[in-house]
């Protein structure tokens, strides 16, 4: 066990954990933020996607020990106060989720995509989002919602 100080969604959190504990389980079970999901444990499905310093990261394959002192961690709970992130708004407009289990990860990837590429093409979307699996098959709506969010962002 070792002591760690993490910055998650702007809050400083102190905790003790085994160094090899994946951030996925730290976030879910130790910090209590359940929005980040377990899907595969092997960085194949993207359900566990969080941001570290704004970059999308698969938390199932990121140990707590690998987090550096000043890293800023963002989870789905931290991207907005009141569901008012543009990506969340677009997701609601397009009624994207079905079962919804993969959607936290999808949204985290999409948020990072739109920060990096404000006007993504379909190819850009493919490249950025291909790591996020949706078994319910909401892909076409994900694509539409990303385009919509890009347009909303532009309009602001």
């Amino acid at each position, binding site marked *: *066990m070792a002591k760690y100080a993490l910055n998650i969604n702007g809050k400083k959190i102190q905790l003790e954990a*085994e160094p090899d*504990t*994946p951030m996925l*389980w730290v976030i*879910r*079970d*130790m910090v*209590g*933020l*359940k*929005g*980040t*999901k*377990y*899907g*595969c*444990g*092997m960085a*194949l*499905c993207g*359900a566990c996607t969080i941001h570290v310093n704004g970059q999308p990261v698969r938390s199932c394959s990121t140990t707590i020990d690998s987090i550096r002192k000043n890293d800023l961690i963002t*989870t*789905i*709970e931290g991207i*907005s106060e009141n*569901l008012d992130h543009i990506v*969340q708004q677009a*997701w*609601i407009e397009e*009624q*994207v*989720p*079905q*079962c*919804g*289990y*993969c*959607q*936290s990860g999808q*949204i985290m990837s999409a948020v990072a995509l739109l920060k990096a590429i404000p006007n993504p093409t379909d190819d850009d*979307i*493919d490249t950025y*989002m*291909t790591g*996020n*699996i*949706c*078994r*319910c*098959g*909401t*892909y*076409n*709506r*994900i*694509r539409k919602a990303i385009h919509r969010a890009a347009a909303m962002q532009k309009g602001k």
Partner: protein
Amino acid sequence: MKNTGNITVNRRNFLRYTSLTGTALILGISNNNTLGAAVVSNLSNATEGYNLSPFIIIEKSGKITLFNTKPEMGQGTFQSIPALIAEELELAPGQFTVVQTGGEKKFGAEQAAGGSYSVRSSYEMLRKVGASAREMLVTAASRQWDVPVSECYAEFARVFHKPSGRSLGYGELVETAAAMEAPENPRLKDPKTFRMLGKSSRRPDVPLKVSGQAVFGIDVEVPGMVYASVERCPVFGAALTDFDASHALKVTGVEQVVPVERVFGNYKTTGVAVVASSYWAALKGRKALRVKWDYRGNEQFNSADYNQYLRDLALNEGITDVSTGDFDTAFAGGQSQVEAFYETPFVAHATMEPMNCTAHWKEGNQLEIWASTQVPSDIINEIPGMFGLGADDVTLHTCFNGGGFGRRLAIDFVIEAVNLSKAIKKPVKLIWTREDDMQMGPYRPPTFSAMKGALSSDGKLAAFQHKVIAPTILSFLVPQQDKTKVDETMVEGISHQAYEIPNMKNSFVYADCPAPLLWWRSVTSSTLAFAHECFLDEMAHKAGKDPLNFRMEMLTKESDTRRVLQKLREVSNWDAPLPEGKGRGIAQWDFFAGLAGEVVEVTRLSDNSVKIDKVYVVIDLGTVVNPDNVKAQMEGAVVMGITAAVKKGITFANGRTEQSNYHDSPVLRITESPEVVVHILAEGGSTIKGVGEPGLPPVAPALANAIFHATGIRLRKMPFDLDDLRG
């Protein structure tokens, strides 16, 4: 007050859902559970001792709660089921809260989501419940104002008096309404006046799912909870002989190691559970286990031998499913005889949320369960008997399902968690890893199909045979399956398509299987439609006819199928020639879940590869509740159907599943998702067909038929590789 009949109410149980202190109007149906016989009763004034199923609770504060008996797994029941009540009750979407039921008997015996049956089975009944409440509230207002009922109407949770314009909220009327009796035959709204039903509506679970707030089974947390991971034998049907927990117990956080039984119908296996204060510790502890299994010869099971076993069985006559005319004579004497053999694989459900369950066996033999489940009723009906408990001793919390697809119709993972909690006397969350989920089954069964057909002299289908060779789901669920009769599930649809075929003899050959099997989205239609609709294309080609025309020639009478195919011709522009290098294929399927037809368009990339461009779906519904949700279900079914057609399924070697995660058992990704155009046939009226499953069966055959059109390659085995069609 008139006699409300022999129904008993247990107020304590109602109040569990709300913090009711004063009077509330509580409406439900008496526990008959047959569609026609549903009787709406007002039980607000009922004293302790009545049973009922309350779907609506209206509090004096104005708060309205509607109950959803059909688990939400992405198919939209969280919106569509309460909407049936809300429409008649004149509520707007934001004016009520939805609560998911937990199998409590008072809500009836059909708390289950599957078979594309949720909306169809609830439509009339729940509208009646809502209409009844509306009428009572309107009458209550008319009495409070002392005006004729005819001058009052309900709208958006208020009752208005037309001449004077005054109004009262439902909360202000509940005390008067609660003293009244429920009308026996409330007037149902004219569908032309619907505000919600039939219109694309926002689903109230969507905001929860985009904010990370939605609670799935895997997210549940209860005080004092421990975590568990179970080491189960990878060889199907093996037995646990011994285990050494000493190393596992040394892992920080591991508390105990106990054997635990998983029960899937007749298939029972014991594994070794590592219980720990954190899930990560449980996983690490499990890796440190030393376990001995007795494979009992089951390590011989492998796909190559199993597929050959099914092929060999095809030589059997089989049991006749349906026979019309005289197939043997007509086939023997027919022209252009075609015989073809089709093969399909086992596939996994692969829900994004792997199996898991939280169970708490408490002091005094009380049991509390939290689960992502499609079958709350089964849990409440079966668990008490299994564990020697009374029905009231078990409380279930039904969570949002992170995917169902039929996997969560089974309660094996629930029984396993209950067994574990009972052994350790603590609340425990038992999570299956993705590997566990993929390797332990149950799976969708494969079906092999021996097809035979012959044409008449004018190129019509004169003789047709679909012989199905398959293991059965029921063999795992019933003690002794009667193998002298056809298993209806395993031949579904093949003898009941609308095609007019003068001589048809379909049959079934039983196969055994050591790996457990279960219903998968669209069940056996997901494989049978592939053989059936591809073979019809083979016959069409033999006759030198357009595949759609060939089908229409067998649909001379008016039918839903004919309507669907006509619409498909229209929306896909079937008769317009495609540009060079493109191909299109068609398929339709009519079965227990509903009816849909599809056209797939592909582009030929080389003489051995294609890409999918577009899929047209026409679904026959009759009546539609949420059109946008129907479109979403079709889009999803197409993606799932393509995955099953072109991605590696489940195979076996040395008695165990070869695949373990999404790298060797892939599912479609966003890069492979084609454009999907959906057309809903909704003539209105009393017919309602299902939505969740019908979009799936036509995908594989329409795709294979399109590939034949584009490349001349006839595919008879699923999965096939779009980048290497000849394999």
